[in-house]
């Protein structure tokens, strides 16, 4: 089980590379995981060509939720929004390099849910976004 806490995840949790809040921004979204109180907000700047120029996350929560947010943000910088819309659960699990049970999966996928709700310009984040 300690595999879940591979060095990369602990490192990203303790010293994230993309923690912050961009102001001004083109895209903003935030949401909670009510089960454990994890919170993630994401801010994104998009170029005229529809490509993500800068992105950042802020929030609090467990190592899995925060590390996956940091890795996710890293992966979307320089990508077109259309590509980000296609990201799914498996992409996040591949970034983390671990397998997760149903409870912890929610922690890992919170940032993807927030990201996609923001990119799609939705009023609220739904679990269907990360199926």
């Amino acid at each position, binding site marked *: *089980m*300690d595999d*879940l*806490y591979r060095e990369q995840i602990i490192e990203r949790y*303790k010293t994230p590379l993309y923690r912050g809040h961009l102001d001004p921004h083109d895209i903003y979204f935030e949401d909670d995981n009510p089960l*454990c109180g994890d919170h993630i907000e994401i801010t994104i700047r998009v170029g005229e060509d529809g490509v993500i120029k800068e992105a950042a996350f802020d929030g609090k929560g*467990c*190592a*899995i939720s925060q590390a996956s947010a940091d890795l996710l943000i890293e992966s979307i910088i320089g990508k077109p929004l259309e590509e980000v819309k296609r990201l799914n659960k498996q992409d996040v699990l591949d970034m983390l390099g671990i397998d997760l049970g149903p409870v*912890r999966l929610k922690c890992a996928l919170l940032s993807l849910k927030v990201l996609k709700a923001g990119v799609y310009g939705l009023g609220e984040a739904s679990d269907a976004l990360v199926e």
Partner: protein
Amino acid sequence: MLNTDLLRKDFPILDRQTAGGARVIYLDSTATSQKPLAVIEAMNEFYRRSNANIHRGVHTLAEEATALYEGAREKIARFIHADSAKEIIYTRNTTESINLVAYTWGRANLEKGDLVILTEMEHHSNLVPWHMLERERGIRLEFIPVTDDGLLDLDAYRALLDQSPKLVSFTHMSNVLGTVNPAAEIISLAHAAGAVTLLDGAQSVPHFSVDVRALDVDFLAFSGHKMCGPTGIGILYGKAALLEAMPPFLGGGDMIKTVHLRSFVPNSLPHKYEAGTPAIAEAIGLGAAVDYLTSIGMDAIAAHEHEITEYALERLEEIPGVTVFGPSAQHKGGVTAFTLEGVHPHDVAQILDGKGIAVRAGHHCAQPLHEKFGITATTRASFYLYNVKEEVDLLVEGLYHVKKVFG
């Protein structure tokens, strides 16, 4: 002292291993307790030998099923020292018991502006039913504050009583802080102010002797699954006079005396509140759990848990970065909720799970209490009759390992 070596053999699950190959160290009895063989077998035996619907039909199986179901009710009545088994209503769990009171007694007796007193340490199950009545009826809610050391502020409570509350509904023991509240005193003060009282016994009835007559409480709610019984069965105790006067809860079979096309006459107690085919095997299982706990002795169980809790507090507090919430062992049942600096409770619980240690992480259905202490979540280790000090040692070792992982 309990003979835990012997007693642990009654719980087959304590012998199993977890995914990592470690033996399970079960420190989550506050969420649900493990079940002794006597309970598992009582339910199996019912299905093998006596299964039939109750209160319907005169055949042998129906008679046996009814006798077993009603026999369990008698045992439960004796266990909490009720005057009569007709004061014992079967529900699904504590939550349903509290909702039953809110829906029936509450809607018959509470009007706009009426005051209900709760506390800041309530489980969501003793908050949300009253929130719902607040929205529907415009009743008022006030809360007995929790002090920094995790006790109820009784001076503030006395001041609230001047506002003539209709109901005081509170937990006997906090599922987070472990605080055992002075129920007799709170109830007698409420009665002096003319209020009805409801006690949430989800955490007390499983762990120490609760005497409804000595407490003079009007309603007591508790769950079977936290006291060695199965899930799906809970109890609402109510004083007969109150239960007689309240309107019925769910409508259907068994809760009626007679039904006509355009009318019905409700059944007598306790059946008035039990519509439809109930959880028969589970009720019988709960009866077996009561027998089991009685055979061990509630006072012995309470003393055993107290000793473990005292030891756990001592050991946890020596770990740098650990903060334990709630009062000293003197005012506390077998629940220790804590935080470990720099590590989210979910991560603590996950890493402990790797060593076979089952603890709970989160807000434990007591979000307002966590807000009060300025935290979103805690890790909670809780103890029951089958836990031993060696398991506390393993927990402490596990926490040092968590610290190492998070360096």
